[in-house]
């Protein structure tokens, strides 16, 4: 009993948290190896804040905009929690991007961790979909244009995109289905992939720079939780200082807004290619990421020695960055002929 008190382990004993005392490379406690865990922490923030927002949001096109305004002006803590949701999504985008770059650089996708990589790429793709569907839910001018992009993209891609067209069903609205996607289907997919990702990391380990020194996972988890709480604190403060806004009510037939910053590289590509940019850009990026373990076949797994795959990855990364800058500073253009 005394030992239980000394390490605060009443709960540890009941929840068998000792199972977390397994050895991991000491390098796992470096900041660069915490990016994935930090992203998971942001996902927890997104789920909790999303559940709260869902209590006040109305997915009916007739009531959606007013319900968002209600959340901002009248729901208790609504403005802050919505801003927290917004900033956590941005933070998750940054950490997941940095995590992918780090894992790619270290070539951690090589045998036997191909599936771990694919689960991660799948989660990054889902995060991208979370952002574009979330923007549509605002149902302001930007949200309306996002919804129109879904329809245009759905019509361009035929059967593949049928879900995003108004003709998919007469029984409910597209906004309602986007809401269902954002709050049901995407979270289910994300949690499934997250579970798979963690399972594989637990059993296959990470591809870390291993100096022979070990630590235990429980210490890593405590440190990671600490980092996550500090990150929550910082985002919470940002949400207070820079609350996210809402555009004016939508006017159909106009395309005047730019999308949320994580999607601006797609906007830049649309400026160059037209509406097909929104289909081709993300497809090319995620197809490349998914193909990386298949393309990099050398038996050597030294970080940075990818050969041509590395150069291709670097070129693609620079193109995305250039498109993003073009999206930020380039002109506003009509892409879908609303």
């Amino acid at each position: 009993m005394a030992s239980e008190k000394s390490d605060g382990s009443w709960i540890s004993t009941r929840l068998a948290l000792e199972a977390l005392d397994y050895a991991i490379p000491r390098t796992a406690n470096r900041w660069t190896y915490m990016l994935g865990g930090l992203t998971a922490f942001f996902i927890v923030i997104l789920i909790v804040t999303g559940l709260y927002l869902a209590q006040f949001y109305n997915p009916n096109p007739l009531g959606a905009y007013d319900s968002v305004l209600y959340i901002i002006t009248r729901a208790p803590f609504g403005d802050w929690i919505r801003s927290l949701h917004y900033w956590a999504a941005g933070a998750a985008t940054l950490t997941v991007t940095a995590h992918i770059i780090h894992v790619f650089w270290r070539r951690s996708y090589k045998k036997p961790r191909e599936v771990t990589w694919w689960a991660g790429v799948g989660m990054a793709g889902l995060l991208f979909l979370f952002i574009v569907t979330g923007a549509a839910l605002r149902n302001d001018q930007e949200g309306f244009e996002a919804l129109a992009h879904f329809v245009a993209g759905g019509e361009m891609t035929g059967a593949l995109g049928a879900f995003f067209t108004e003709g998919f069903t007469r029984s409910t609205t597209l906004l309602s289905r986007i809401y269902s996607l954002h709050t049901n289907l995407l979270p289910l997919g994300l949690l499934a992939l997250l579970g798979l990702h963690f399972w594989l990391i637990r059993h296959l380990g990470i591809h870390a720079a291993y100096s022979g020194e070990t630590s235990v996972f429980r210490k890593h988890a405590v440190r990671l939780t600490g980092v996550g709480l500090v990150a929550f604190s910082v985002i919470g403060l940002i949400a207070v200082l820079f609350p996210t806004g809402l555009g004016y009510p939508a006017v159909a037939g106009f395309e005047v807004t730019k999308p949320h910053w994580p999607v601006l590289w797609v906007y830049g590509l649309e400026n160059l290619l037209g509406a097909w940019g929104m289909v081709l850009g993300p497809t090319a990026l995620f197809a490349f990421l998914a193909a990386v373990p298949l393309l990099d076949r050398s038996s050597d797994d030294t970080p940075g020695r990818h050969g041509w795959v590395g150069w291709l990855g670097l070129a693609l990364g620079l193109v995305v960055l250039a498109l993003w800058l073009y999206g930020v500073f380039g002109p506003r253009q009509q892409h879908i002929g609303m």
Partner: protein
Amino acid sequence: MLGRTVSAGFLLVLVGPTALAIAHGAVLESPPHGAVLKSTQSAVAAGGILTVNGSDFDEGTYALRLIGALVEFDLRQVTPNEEGTFALELEIPRAVRAGQYKLTAVASDGHAAASLDLTILEGSVTNEPEAGRDLADEPEAGHGATSGEMARAEDLPIERSRGGAEWGLIGLLIGLAGGLGVSMIRRA
């Protein structure tokens, strides 16, 4: 340490939102019971006529109000007969913006006696000023775009007024999370 963190996590994730929901529910009016408002129409155009029947009302005079998320319209007063029933035709003002509303019978003491969900469809375009009381104290709040307006890319100016208690709780949460986080990083 991890055990305590798990406990704190449970508190934050489960108890926090639950407490907020209960607190929010506590400041709401009691849900309507007993009296019933009915209509054969679930939707009506702004400027159109809605047929409404009331039953099981207590004695007294009730205000029929159209309540949206952000605006509220006083439509008319009604006094049920001795059997607690009434039937009437309500004209929905043309200025009511399309959206989802609750038609609510409010007793003289302010409690909502009965309500029904109602969808208001877009009526003919009008220059008539909106007569509803704006609950958000926001000039644009609840005012949708009408045909002929230009789309705008910028954000709506919104008055974000928060009570001191709310700011205090948010600050406390941010401070606690930051403090606990730094402490955990140091210990680990």
